[in-house]
């Protein structure tokens, strides 16, 4: 049943200067599902995420968004439907928080200014930052900036949201506020792929955990199952190490 997949990644390969980072990755995502990608650094998780919206164009393989193939020629339109949350937020520094959440709606989707403002305000409320609309990014904490960047992605009404280690650049005391927003989105039925080391999030919010290593998917399954009885030794070892530190 590939038809009802929001995101369908098929046999994606990517090499950098002869080094194969992704060696044929495939997975699918149904509406409302949250999948968490885990694995040691260098396993290709972030590259995979960036291949999905062609920030890093894949060498081989195909990617479908709600049945439509993501291609170089339709990439801007596709990206408008794929929300992306970066590790280091990448809020537009010269724009206020409100304008950060407005600008892509207006410039990319052609939403009317007042409608975009209203939507932006709603999304800011949703991430708990309704009172920060007129602040500039540099005036916010890392956790607040990341929540704004989530609001920016949400305001585009994306088919799917991709999170690339959204808490890795944050001080430990600030990760909680971001994780809570992500958990709320997952329970609201947002369709999401999350690269993270936050195992509490994986445990509570993921429908499926995908364990990657050396450019391959080693194992995937419901988090409870993987945490308690991963079939693969390396998956088990990795999750144990993460669990101890997390």
């Amino acid at each position, binding site marked *: 049943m590939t038809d009802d997949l929001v995101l369908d990644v098929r046999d994606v390969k990517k090499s950098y200067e002869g080094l194969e980072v992704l060696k044929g990755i495939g997975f699918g995502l149904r509406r409302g599902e949250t999948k968490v990608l885990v694995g040691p650094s260098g396993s290709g998780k972030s590259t995979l995420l960036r291949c999905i*919206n062609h*920030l890093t164009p894949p060498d081989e393989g195909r990617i479908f968004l709600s049945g439509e193939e993501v291609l170089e020629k339709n990439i*801007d*339109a*596709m*990206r*408008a*439907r794929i929300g*992306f949350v*970066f590790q*280091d937020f*990448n*809020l*537009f*520094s*010269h724009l206020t928080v409100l304008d950060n959440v407005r*600008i*892509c709606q207006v*410039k*990319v*989707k052609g939403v009317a200014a007042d409608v975009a403002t209203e939507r932006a305000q709603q999304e800011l409320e949703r991430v708990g930052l309704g009172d920060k609309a007129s602040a*500039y*990014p*540099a*005036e916010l904490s890392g956790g607040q900036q990341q929540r704004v960047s989530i609001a*920016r*992605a949400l305001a*585009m009404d994306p088919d799917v949201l991709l999170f690339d280690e959204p808490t890795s650049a944050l001080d430990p005391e600030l990760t909680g506020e971001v994780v809570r927003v992500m958990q709320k989105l997952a329970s609201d039925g947002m369709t999401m792929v999350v690269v993270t080391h936050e195992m509490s999030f994986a445990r509570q919010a993921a429908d499926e955990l995908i364990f990657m290593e050396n450019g391959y998917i080693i194992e995937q399954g419901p988090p409870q199952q993987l945490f308690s009885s991963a079939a693969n030794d390396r998956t088990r070892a990795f999750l144990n190490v993460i669990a101890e530190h997390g």
Partner: protein
Amino acid sequence: MLDFLRFGIEWLPALLKGVPLTLALWVIAITLGCLLGLILCWARVYGNRLCYWISTVYIELFRGTPMLVQMFFIYLGLPHVGIVFDAFTAAVIAITLNSAAYQAEYFRGSVLSVPRGQMVAARACGMSKWQAIRHIMLPQALRRVIPQWSNEAIIELKFTSIAYTIGVVEITAIAQDIGSRTLDFFQVFLWAGLIYLVLTSTVASLLSWVERRTHVPGVTTN
């Protein structure tokens, strides 16, 4: 001191007649230079190989030769191949072309100083490359470039004085003329210098006001 003032009362009105021409020369050249500079910067940062090389050769050529030589070439050299400009136009062209090379380099440095993630984030939400440059990169780069751009603007304001050598009747030319009539070069060039000083400090304060007005925390420093 009294002599200085007396000389001023007599000749300042004549000297000031050069101000509009000096300012016209400067405003036109710096504005056109800014537009051309942006295009050159775009070619060098975002353009393909050909654009990159054309822009680079242009910039090196105009930064590597004296503006006076460029101006003489345009005004005195080009007529030999049938291209004739009046003195004012020739001066505008020379200062424009020269300034564009410098402005392009300031713009380029500024664009490159904007973190890469800004471009990536803009593209990731579906903006085209052009939209990302227009809405995200340029507003930040332009804010960051104001201090250097102010220096360039002031340097070019002073450089308008060399248009005198091809016969443009701006402040320096008038001063020279008054000097040869009164033979008081000491006083007349003190007064001319004073006029330039007033112009450059006015421009400097104006631009620093613009800098303060467009300040955004995290993009520019105070």
